[in-house]
């Protein structure tokens, strides 16, 4: 099933008014920890997981994820090991897995080669924060060819025209950055946020994921009805750092 249809189907379940997507930095602190964290996430009801392939220049990320990228690389993570690990995850868990990374990782690997292998692994979508449609001709062509969703990002600075333009390229869902800035900081959910979400909704038929600064049940509750997917990023990385892997399950369970 196409990712967007799959998401819409899932949302049709009256117990699932909003889906949860979590974020993992591969190799941080280790693939073994990633494995156990993912296990708990899936067991506790996460609907999608985006796995970030570390890059040395994570321009759009905040300090927690920047540090995670850097340490993962220092500890020896490679693109090869990320792909192998992903293959294992998709084989183990039934939920959709996505890759999040910066364009250079894919460019350097070879765009087509990367799509071919991702397809084989069963990856469902790509989130590439530094690849606007204007620069991604080859990328978007391969995305369509291999049927892997290229998930584009809406920002609070995007105009309606721009949103419609982005929607033309996006597949699966739209990732709405909840606010300006990088990942990891708290977002104020206020009237202007509601206007923003309304504009997002008006300018695409795709499901909407909302990320940047979502960290609690209150946040998720607030988003319910406005967005289709709540994205938990930095919060679980910090949780593992501070309280260990075992804290992840109860945290996820308590979100919805």
């Amino acid at each position, binding site marked *: 099933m196409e990712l967007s249809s799959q998401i819409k189907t899932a949302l049709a379940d009256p117990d699932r008014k909003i889906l949860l997507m979590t974020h993992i930095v591969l190799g941080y602190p280790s693939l073994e920890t990633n494995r156990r964290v993912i296990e708990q996430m899936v067991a506790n009801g996460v609907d999608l997981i985006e796995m970030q392939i570390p890059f040395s220049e994570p*321009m759009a990320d905040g300090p927690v994820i920047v540090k995670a990228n850097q340490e993962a690389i220092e500890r020896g993570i490679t693109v090869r090991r990320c792909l192998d690990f992903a293959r294992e995850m998709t084989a183990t868990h039934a939920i959709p897995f996505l890759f999040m990374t910066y364009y250079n990782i894919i460019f350097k690997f070879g765009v087509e080669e990367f799509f071919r292998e991702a397809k084989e692994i069963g990856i469902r979508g790509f989130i590439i924060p530094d690849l606007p449609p204007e620069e991604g001709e080859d990328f978007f062509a391969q995305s369509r060819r291999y049927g892997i969703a290229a998930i584009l990002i809406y920002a609070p600075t995007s105009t309606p025209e721009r949103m419609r333009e982005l929607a033309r390229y996006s597949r699966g869902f739209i990732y709405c950055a909840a606010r300006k800035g990088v990942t990891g900081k708290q977002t104020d959910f206020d009237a202007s946020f509601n206007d923003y979400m309304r504009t997002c909704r008006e300018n695409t038929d795709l499901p909407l994921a909302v990320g940047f600064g979502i960290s609690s049940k209150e946040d998720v509750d607030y988003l319910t009805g406005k967005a289709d997917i709540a994205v938990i990023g930095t919060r679980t990385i910090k949780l593992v750092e501070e309280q260990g892997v075992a804290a992840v399950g109860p945290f996820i369970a308590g979100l919805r």
Partner: protein
Amino acid sequence: MNKPGYYGEWGGAFIPEVLYQTFCELNEAFQKAKADPAFWQEYLSLMSTYSCRPTPLTHAENLSRHFGGAQIFIKREDLNHTGAHKANNVMGQGLLVKRMGKTRVIAETGAGQHGVATATMAAKFGFACTIYMGEEDVQRQRPNVFWMEKLGSTVVPVTSGSKTLKDAINEAFRDWVTRMDDTHYVMGTVCGPHPFPEMVAWFQSIIGREACGQIKQQFGRQPSRVYACVGGGSNAMGIFQGFLDNPAVELVGVEAGGKGLDSGMHASRLAAKDGSPGVAQGYKTMFLQNSDGQMMDTHSVAAGLDYVGVSPILTDLWQQKRVRFSAATDAEVMAALDLTMKKEGIIPALESAHAFVQAFKEAGEMGRDEAIIINMSGRGDKDIFTIAHAFNDPSWKEFIKKKGIEYGA
């Protein structure tokens, strides 16, 4: 035809969506300014009353005699206000920021020259200013940090990554994506997403325009070769533009050879075999990266050349073989610096001294009726801690030791 913002296959604007609108506005403002002759006039007038343009072209008679070949001319960007060519770019962007009605500027800096220039421009135009600088560069270029702060700017040491220029650029982008409404990011070199390479090259073209006229006037005709150091490539692009359309003038870019091209400790993206195409920091060019696409640590005694990427415009000119690239090692740089000081009474910045190295290697084999131009991108004063250290100067060390003790060491 090329996509806008591309030079051959290089360039582009690989930017996060949140900046899309900002770049639209920036492109529009820049293209309007570029098409408006009054803007360039305003720029020229600012540069001639606030900085010291036109900067002189100095005939280095002693060095010419020493090498016994080409007549060596030095384009004196060191005499700009704040001591380097960086002022050209920064003052130009300052005028643009004023036009756009923004009130705050941010910048990355490596050697600190671009930071000091931006802090200076911000003071002059009344903008708030934050400068991002790799923690390692904060150490290497402390005097510049002091001046930026005294000029009223906030200097933020960047502790991520390799703690040098590339990380400062990332950090500046992280600031920008948070505050694009009132803030302009003053990119310091001909890199980054379109329109920065075009914009910085345009402002820096003032160097080449002047040099082209000056050499004709002083030497009677065009030079055989023009040398410039290449960090991001802005001073090189600046002077090269004066000669690009004359195929008889050979253009030579000199990168940081660090401890040698085979040592892995250098910053030669084009002269060494270690560079490969990549996309980072918002643009596509040749980067020093590993096979996974992770950027490598670079090394140079000159903080301003210690960078993984290089101007997409230069990469294109290199690919077209219009610009030849070479590298100068740290050791060669210190020797060229020493010779230039003693022979001409001129103190090049460590960055600039790279261009001198290559010119010195070639001058002797050229005819006395030929001329070459070295672009002296900046003055060496800022490098006193590095240079005194490299020369192992005992009385300097004694002085610093005493001062250190005075401050509680």
